[in-house]
Structures are given as structure tokens and as C-alpha cells.
């Protein structure tokens, strides 16, 4: 099966660069799987778990938003913040949830009527909470 060149970069480091057979991306409008010969697409990410399947198995990364550039031969994910799943401890996760909560509070505070910011922030928070369930950490409700 043909492979795609997968790159995952965050502003602070390059996390992965492998030949993958499929990449499951948590896109804003729903999860999508990119394989070879995918239609060139640019999509934004929501906080979630990104899965890369390659010859050596599957790697999982927790990403907190950013965007992905998909072409027929490559998938580049540019994440604001990304960590291999194994590095996400309960402490880091709690911090992520707390940040999302703070962002929601801030967005609600300066929401001027029909501002979509609060809605987006609320969505980001629930997405962040969902990460916890997906990777098996305790979630606060």
C-alpha cells in the first residue's frame, strides 16, 4: 500500500516525520482519515487525539488545535501544542482543561450579543474534556 509522508510540527519542535499508511485527524468539522492520494485539503483542527498508522504500529498524539495540510503524497499537521500521548500526564491534562475553561470564561465575559467566540470556546472546552476520556485520564465534570 502506498504511504504518505507524515509530519507533525509544533512551534517548539518537530514531533514526528514518518511514512504513514493512514493518519486520523481530529478536524474541526469532524474526524477525517487521510491516506495516499487524498484530495489536497487544508483543514483546521479541534483539540483531540491524532492517530498515525505506520509500519511500526500506531502512534497517538494529543493536539490542541492548529491546522493540517493534506496532499496526495503528504500530510503536514501544524499544531499549536502537541504531545505524544504517553507524555500527557494527569497534571498536563488538568492544565489543558483549566486553560480551556479560562478561555471560555473570558469569551463569555466580553461576549457582545451574538458573538460566536463563546460558542467556539465552549466547543473547545468540551473537545478538551473529551480527550481525557479518549486517552484514559480522569475527567472532572
Amino acid at each position, binding site marked *: 500500500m502506498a504511504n504518505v509522508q507524515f*509530519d507533525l510540527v509544533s512551534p517548539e519542535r518537530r514531533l514526528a516525520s514518518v511514512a504513514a499508511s493512514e493518519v486520523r485527524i481530529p478536524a474541526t468539522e469532524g474526524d477525517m482519515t487521510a491516506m495516499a492520494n487524498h484530495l489536497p485539503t487544508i483543514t483546521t483542527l479541534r483539540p483531540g487525539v491524532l492517530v498515525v498508522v505506520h509500519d511500526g504500529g500506531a502512534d497517538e498524539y494529543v493536539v490542541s488545535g492548529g491546522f493540517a*495540510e493534506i496532499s496526495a503524497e503528504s500530510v503536514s499537521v501544524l499544531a499549536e501544542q502537541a504531545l505524544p500521548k504517553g507524555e500527557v500526564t494527569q497534571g498536563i491534562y488538568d492544565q489543558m482543561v483549566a486553560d480551556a475553561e479560562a478561555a471560555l470564561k473570558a469569551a463569555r465575559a466580553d461576549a457582545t450579543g451574538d458573538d460566536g467566540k463563546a460558542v467556539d470556546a465552549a466547543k473547545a472546552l468540551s473537545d478538551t474534556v473529551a480527550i481525557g476520556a479518549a486517552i484514559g485520564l480522569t475527567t472532572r465534570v
Partner: protein
Amino acid sequence: MPNLKDLKNRIASVKSTRKITKAMQMVAAAKLRRAQDAAEASRPYTERFTAVMAQLAASVGGSDSAPKLLSGTGGDQVHLLIVMTAERGLCGGFNSNITKLAKVHAQKLLAQGKTVKILTVGKKGRDALKREFGSYAVGHIDLSAVKRVGYVNAQDIARDVLARFDGGEYDIATIFFARFENVVTQHPTAQQIIPAKFEQAADADVTLYDYEPGEEEILADLLPRGVATAIFSALLENAASEQGARMSAMDNATRNAGEMIDKLTIQYNRSRQAVITNELIEIISGAEAL
């Protein structure tokens, strides 16, 4: 002529200064490596980001509904200068080169009758601009507690900058920082970040992308991140430049101290010999007088 004891003290003090500058040079060299690694690590992200943004900007930029961060507010009356310097001194001309560039820029704008607002990042820039441009300062961001600049710091600065833009406080934002070339050369640079400017790629192998959600939503989402990315890479360049400048400044200082020690030692030895000769003459002439 200074007496022997004074000279000896002086030599001792220059020697300890040399030890300090030598140590600072070595610390700077180690930090420089780390700063360069960090700058290197951020490059893939920045490059890809800029490439995608340039493409998006080219396809959406022309339309009237383009976001303000890209097309501008329509005016160019109020300029925000973001002056990014170090928190510490003793790094040669690093801080003063950046502030000098910012000052020239500000004076040019003022001469054209524009309004200038200054936001400083780093203590040294604020101190240098306080006297002449203190009244234009609108804010200061302190990074002295930050050991190693991270993307979070850039996001904080970007949030502040964007909030001011949304509040209609300015039309054009420019960042001032030093681009790292090598240990001896750092170029003070001015870069306009709002409205964003992208160089069109000359080799136009434009891939037609499918956008999800729409182009404009993506652009609206990415532009604020673009500001943070630009600030982040400026912070990293600055960090590397600062250490590079400090390293060469301390290298010079160490060399100067060495030269000074040599000169003082020669002077010390000469005076010591003169004293001995004097004593001998006294003894001999005393003996002859008997």
C-alpha cells in the same frame, strides 16, 4: 608614579574582572547553542505556516470581505511599534541597535504627522526609549521571569497586540528585533505584522486545495496565529542574537582585560626594579660615605 601596592591591587582586580567576563562568555556560548537549537526547531512550523498563509492570502486577499488583519483597517494613521529587546545588558550593541532602529522609525513617522504608539517587550528597550519617547509608550511586557521563551509567551504578547487591534487602537503594527546571522553579526530588523504581508512565491506551483471549513473561516482562524508565530520567531531570533552579541562582547572584554593585565604587570615589574635599584644606590652610597 603609583606605588607597588596600588599596582598589585589593580592587577588583582582586573584579573577577577577577566574571570567574570570569561565565565559570562562561556555561559553565553552555552545559551547560544540552546537558543539556536530552539530557533532551528521552530523553523519547519514557521515555514509551512507562512507557505499556507501566503497561498490563502493570495486567493482571498483580493475580495472585499478579507479579514482586517490581512487587508488592514484602511488607514495608516496610527502605528504601533513593538520593540523587542533583552531583559539584561552587557551584550554589546544588541539592545541599542534595536532601539536605535525603532527611534529612527518613530521619528520618521512623527515627521509625517502620524501617531506613534510604543509597546516594549524587554526591560532594556523600555529604559532606552523612556526619556525620548516615554509619552508614546502604551504598554510593557516583562519577560524577566521567563527562563526560556516558549510559544506561550508569544501567544501572550499576540493576545495583547490583537486585543489592541480589535479595540481600534492602531492601524499598523511593526515589530523590531535583531535577526541572528552569526555570532558577530545580528541585524536589527523591522517587520510589519499587521496587516500581514506575504511575499508571493515566485515558483508558482499552486496546488488547488479543498478547504474545510471555507477559505475565509480558515484564514480568520489562522491570521491571529500568524501574529503569534511571527512574534515567536522574532523572540527566538532575539534570544539567539542576544547571546551571540553577549558572547562576542564578553570575548572582547576578556581580551581587553588580558591586555590591561600585561601592561600593568610590566609597569609593576619596572617599578619594582626601580625600587630595588634605588635601595641599592642608597646602600652603596651609604657605605661609600663611611
